[in-house]
């Protein structure tokens, strides 16, 4: 059984570039069986053929296999550094513009926790240090369900344990057992569907333009193999302003083709900056 699963994972890797090889076979098997039920495939072979013939199946496949559990201010140190170092630096570098407008792209936003966390930080910065600061936060994902969830901005208590009490009062409204991010936060965040691997447009249309000051691409690369990751990286780098920052997930690292272009500015936090300033 395990062998069959391994074979299937290899084939999916070969066909789509999604790298599920690091998954536990049992987990993968459980999730893939849901897809097989939906597509009425009785064997792995059938499913592979289906996948080959229906490129649209890639999206539900990824959605059912990837894990989307997160919470606000996950990896608090990253957000600490964002608030105290990275964001102020980027904002200062744009001060020469009459009205500086930050552009931030979350490539692979999942449930939106990270996006709203950043939005809170920006509102705080606007309040305390940079009055009149404008920001445009774009969050994209390949998972339309996740996008809907993120757009709604409704979270349970477990997702908010890292949120300071003051923030909770200021940026959330209570709706029964849940907390909803308020308008103040939502109005600077846009959501849009975007396939980092297959999209023909170089950057998400909902972001209007290709240039971003900060790009979050956390826990996305881990699902793909290296050639695909290189493509993704090329795309991300093509969309990065100068100066600009890319923020990767905790367990991800720079690909060889990007090492010359970026440098890790905060050790271990996976925050990378354009080489040339």
């Amino acid at each position, binding site marked *: 059984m395990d062998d069959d699963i391994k074979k299937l994972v290899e084939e999916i890797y070969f066909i789509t570039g999604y790298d599920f090889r690091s998954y536990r076979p049992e987990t993968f098997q459980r999730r893939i069986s849901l897809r097989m039920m939906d597509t009425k495939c009785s064997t792995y072979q059938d499913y592979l053929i289906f996948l080959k013939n229906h490129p649209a199946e890639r999206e539900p496949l990824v959605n059912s296999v990837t894990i989307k559990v997160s919470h606000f201010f996950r990896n608090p140190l990253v957000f600490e550094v964002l608030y105290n170092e990275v964001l102020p630096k980027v904002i200062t570098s744009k001060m020469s*513009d*009459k*009205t500086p*407008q930050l*552009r931030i792209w979350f490539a692979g936003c999942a449930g939106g926790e990270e996006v709203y966390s950043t939005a809170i930080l920006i509102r705080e910065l606007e309040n305390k240090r940079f009055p009149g600061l*404008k920001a*445009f936060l774009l969050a994209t994902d390949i998972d339309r369900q996740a996008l809907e969830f993120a757009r709604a901005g409704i979270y349970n208590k477990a997702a908010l344990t890292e949120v300071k009490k003051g923030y909770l009062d200021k940026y959330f409204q209570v709706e029964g057992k849940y907390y909803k991010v308020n308008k103040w936060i939502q*109005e600077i965040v*846009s959501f849009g569907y975007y396939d980092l691997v297959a999209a*023909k*447009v*170089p*950057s*998400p*249309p*909902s*972001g*209007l*333009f*290709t*240039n971003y000051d900060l790009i979050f691409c956390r826990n996305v690369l881990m699902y793909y193999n290296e050639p695909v990751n290189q*493509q993704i990286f*090329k*795309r991300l*780098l*093509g969309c*990065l*302003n*100068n100066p600009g920052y890319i923020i990767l997930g905790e367990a991800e690292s720079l690909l060889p*083709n990007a090492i010359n*272009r970026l440098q890790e500015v905060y050790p271990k936090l996976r925050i990378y900056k*354009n080489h040339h300033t």
Partner: protein
Amino acid sequence: MKNFWQRFSDIAPLEMISSFRGRLLIIISLITIVIAISSGIINYHLTMRTARDEFQESFSMMSNILKSDIENWIYERKFEVVSMANNPLVQDALLKIINKETGYEQSTNDLQVLLAHFAQNRGIYDGMILLDTNGRVMVSEIIEYDNSLILIEDIYNRPLETGEVYFKDVYLSPNTNKPTISISAPVFAPGSSGEIQNIIGVMSFRITIQEVLEPLLASTANLGATGEVVLVNREGISLMDLRHRPGSGLKYQLQTEASARAARGEEGVGEFKDYTGAQVLAAYRYISDTGWGLVVKKGQEEIFAPWRAKAIIQIVVDIGMALLIIMLCSILLNGLIRPLRELTEGALAISSGDLDKRVVTGGTIEIAALRQAFNNMADNVQNRIDDKNKFHEVLKALLFSIDMNTLLRVTVESVARTYGYQVGAIYICDQEQGLLVLSATYGAAKGFSIQKISPTEGLIGEAIKNKEISVLRNIPSDSEYVIETFTGPIAPKSVLHIPLFFEEQLQGLLALASINTSEDEENDVMMMVADIMAVAINQARIFKQTQKMSNRLQVLNEELTAQNEELKTQSEELAAQSEELIAQRRDLEDKNQALERATQHKSEFLAKMSHELRTPLNAILGFSEALLDNLFGKLPNKQQECIEDIHSSGEHLLGLINDILDLSKIEAGRTDLARDHINPTQPLKEALAIIATEAGKKNIIIENKLESEDLLIYADPDKLKQIFLNLLSNAIKFSHNDGFVSIDVESQTDYLEFSVADNGIGIPPDKKRIIFEEFKQADNTISREYGGTGLGLTITHRLVELHGGHIWVESDFGHGSIFKFTIPKHTVSRITADTSITTSEAAPASDFSEVPTEESASLDETTVKAPKTGGGRKYSGNNSSALLEPSICKHLCPSDIQILLVDDDKHVRDYLTTLLESKGYHVTSTDNGGQAIKIALQEHHDIIILDLVMPDMSGFKVLKELSEHPGLKSKIVVFSAKDLTDDEKKEINRSTHLIYGKGMLSQDEFLSLIERLNGSDKGDSVENHTSYRR
């Protein structure tokens, strides 16, 4: 006994519970004590019951006797009174007295004496009186009563009335104030029968009962300290003084159950409370004659005391018996447990190291067996420990040193001594010789005679082969085994040969000799010793080798260190050189960039210059032509020639300028290839048509071998035509009259190879390489002779390479030349790197500026490329520089510009509004098409930015409606995320100035486009910048 208690008390409470003896004792004690106590209790109860029963019976009996005694006594009294009354003496005397007959005084006296005598005799009565019928005392034993009236009337009334004896129940005598009874009987007249009318007086005896009855009763009942006999009347009043209440006679009513029952006339026996509240055993009887109740009682305490004492003595005896049993059991147990204690002590002694400890044998069969087994076990343990100690000795020797010789010497001595051998020797296996070599001895004075042994021969060989100990016993004293020792020659009784194996490999041999006969059991031990010896020997051997290697390594290491130092020095030198090289390379790069810039400038300069030059030249050519056409009248011949010269020179100059312009365009990277898959025959035909006149002039035959071919290449037809034209005109130019030119093609896998051949003057071998460079014809004179600018081939060369092909020449000097070039059939992703032409794709670029995917590389290259890296300030492809050169655009100031923004997404509107306003534009925005049309028609907006996909009215519809208003001067920019089809694109193109896909260009690029739009009109170059890429 003392011993027992001592032992008993020696046992600690805990031991009492946990030891076998203690437990057994506890159990036995509990059982016996329980039995003793329960039997005591049962015995006690039985005794008490018996006592009660017996007493009740005796009380019943006693009370019956008492009852009859009293009844008898009363009967006797009555009888006495009646007897006295009926005594004729008395009758006569009384009659006399009453009648006062003579001698009555004597009679009175006589009676008095009689009565006194009687009273004295009886000792019961305290008053005896004789009354007359009026109740007057006639005679009494006490004289003072005489003639006095009896106060208690019934004493005489009742006998008078009934004529019978009357018993007056107890009353308090007024005289004595004591309980008293009176019995009175009528005295009849003498000689009369007992009739009432004959009564002459009454005889009455009085008794103070206390004094009389008490002794009577007491004599009958054995009443002890608490016992009492109580008489009560019908009212329950005690008739006599009670024992515990003196003076209570007739004054005290008893409330007790027994007396109440007796008074009611019942009889019985039982346990009651008496008037003092004490528990008593009482029997009660009824005396019917008098209506008295009789109660005989005695305190229970007193009754049971002797019985209880008896029962307690019984219990004490029982407990004593129980204790005796326990004591006996304990003594018995001690006897049983003693051997166990001894064994325990023995085991403790052994475990604490006293291995010689043994227990005394004997005892019962079981105990004897146990003791024997214990002693055997102790023997075994002692043996084992001896073995272990010996083994330990050997081990100590083995660990004594890692040096081979020391190890062997110490080991052989230790083994021999420990196991009682007088002589020992170790042979070590010499791998090279394949022999066992004597390496250490013990006990032998002169060493062993045998220095080397073959491991395959004889008994030893056998032992080694089988990996067993070889033992020789009972060796005759004159054998070869006699050994010289320090104490003289000895003849061993047994000789052992023990092969030493480590991991199946023979390490050596241990030989031992003893004057005693060895035991077989020792062989196992010796095998074990041998195993460990083998390990130690192997270890020592390895150590020896390691040491050797270590020494060698040290030497090597030192050499390496030296080499390392040297290498380090070299490396530092290299690093220094490398840095120099890097510096040089940086210089070179800088220079290279400067050069590139210079080339660019040069080309741009040339392009401009050519343009500027062409304008006056057109005038020269135009006017000279007009003169030659005689428009101003016929010219003199001389002038005609001059003008012809001017004209031809002008044309030459124009050709030259055109070529320079072409070339510089190519070099400036502005030549666009409108490439497509085409058939090359068409461009060739066009070229041939142009060249035909020239060829006809020189009567040159042109053979076209392509005509029939069905070919396809990926090329720009115009440029291909130019290539053909240049090559053909060259061929004709350098051909002699009546020459021959042929065109051919050869198809290869990826490209077509064209050739243009002539039989003209040819090219000298040393010039072949330079003819493609600018202004280089084979000979400077050629220019004069054949005309031409010398740029044709250069341009051809560049054009071919722009297509991704090659051009070269094969020539036989004096006999003609063949120009060959290749054009790819399909797309090529890159132009060969060695080209010097500066094109978009040859521009310095990092990996990231490449088009992202394979497919996108095949896109039409005339369109705008994907955004470049970083801020994306550069465009690749054509027109980009023009686009970004603000100087070209003469636009309005942003603050004068009104922009209408139409998009249904609020985020988009907000963002773009902020962006554009920050650049100074005036922005009005709306979220629906209908509103947009209204605003656009009401007010002038310079630019309308329009989304296509909107819920109420699509962008397409908005465009259509706006196009129906020709007066509208706004420039429309479609800005949408929609994936447009070709048809849609075409449709939109008609009515818009710019189509721009969301997410396609950077913000700066977008702003530049908007800025540029200000200064341009529709139909200008902007239209070509359609930013859609599909």
